């Protein structure tokens, strides 16, 4: 599967579609991504824990924000990746697009869960409650449910190539729906709770908060990219192994 030497196409887009070619170039990405992510985390955590001020209202708990905000950003970024991959699967029938879509779904669910949990842990000391039916929190929870639905749909199919196209349709239906959900939840929230919470990540935040926040967001994003590439490589290898297994069974049946 790795020797595609003489049949190599000149078109870079179709080259990108070749799983063997992907396995070759993505191998060079892993260590640089891991290194960049580790450095960014080290710098970001150092800034976040020692070189940013404690909030005059929230005290030291404000530092949870440096974990919470990047995860909340990734919960949406990951859905964006999945939606783009879904278009790739349906329109160009790109074989790596569905691998990317499948690899991203559990990551998205995990980052969304981390955003929810870190939000709850932050909410307890500052608002006095783990959960508030606030607009953003509610729509993040619904996004988590959508991720779970997508993962469940992946798992009910035996044929992963057919699953990819079906999941792609649902991913796009979800992508159209997410803004509607966001808007309706905001409307519902203003109806029930006219009070607005403070916005810690507003534009008025000083540089001492912005620097660690941006560094941590970048660190988490690079971590996501690393995990995404790793999961894609695992998926390609798994499909190869499955194919070999099928071949082995077929050969045994032929022999007997």
């Amino acid at each position, binding site marked *: 599967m790795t020797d595609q030497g003489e049949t190599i196409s000149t078109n870079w887009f179709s080259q990108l579609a070749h799983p063997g070619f992907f396995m070759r170039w993505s191998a060079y990405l892993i260590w640089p991504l891991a290194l960049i992510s580790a450095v960014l985390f080290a710098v970001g955590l150092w800034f976040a824990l020692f070189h940013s001020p404690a909030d005059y209202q929230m005290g030291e708990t404000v530092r949870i924000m440096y974990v919470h905000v990047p995860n909340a950003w990734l919960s949406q970024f990951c859905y964006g990746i999945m939606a783009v991959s879904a278009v790739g699967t349906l329109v160009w029938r790109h074989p790596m697009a569905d691998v990317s879509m499948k690899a991203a779904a559990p990551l998205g669910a995990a980052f969304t869960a981390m955003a929810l949990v870190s939000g709850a842990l932050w909410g307890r000391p500052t608002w006095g409650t783990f959960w508030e039916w606030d607009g953003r929190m509610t729509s993040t929870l619904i996004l988590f449910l959508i991720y779970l639905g997508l993962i469940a*749909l992946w798992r009910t199919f035996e044929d992963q190539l057919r699953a990819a196209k079906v999941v792609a349709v649902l991913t796009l239906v979800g992508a159209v729906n997410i803004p*509607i959900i966001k808007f309706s939840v905001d409307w519902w929230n203003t109806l029930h709770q006219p009070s607005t919470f403070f916005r810690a990540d507003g534009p008025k935040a000083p540089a001492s908060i912005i620097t660690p926040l941006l560094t941590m967001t970048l660190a988490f994003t690079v971590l996501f990219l690393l995990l995404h590439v790793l999961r894609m490589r695992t998926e390609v290898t798994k499909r190869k192994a499955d194919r070999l297994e099928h071949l082995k069974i077929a050969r045994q049946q032929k022999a007997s």
Partner: protein
Amino acid sequence: MQALWALLIRDLKSASRAGGSLTTLIAFYLSLGVILPIAIGPDKPLLASLGPALIWTGVLLSSLLGLDRIFVADHDDGSLTAFRHTRLGLSAISFVKLIVHWLTTALPLIVLTPVMGVLFSIDLDTLFAVMLTLLLGTPAITALSLVAAALSVSLKRGAVIAPILVMPLAIPAVIFGVGAAKPVLGAGQAETALLFLSAMSLVFVAFAPFAAALALRVSQE
């Protein structure tokens, strides 16, 4: 057009003759109407204030119950394969399926809603408001059910997975549906909710047949 009418009438006939499914639907909906007050307690003012929300939840859950019926019979007997090669196109056929599913699932639930109104002891004005919002909002739920049924048609466990896919996406319909039926709101808010609910139903009904056709096509190849 004639072929679509024939399909509509065929599906309605087979739905009425298959037996059991309508009874199951009614029994499930009414069971919710009994279980919820028993769980909450016989506190009439509380039940009345929760009424619209409980009825909407009941309709959502009940309509998900028979969701797999939309395409499964046609898939099993091979009609779906035949539909793929007709001149009508899968989108038009999916649209007929949407109408049939709404007529056989959502409409009976709306007709039964006055009984739920009595069980939850809600007043007449609220009851009419709830029935109106159900009439305007259930097409959106049926449209989402259509897409989910198309996605899961070839799966053995389709009946289990499809409701999980619909529920998060149906949340806006529930929000605006219950919001428009709440008696405490000012007239302006209720009207906004009603307009959004209708807009959502129109958009979903317009797009769902195409999404369902796409899902049917890719899940069969």
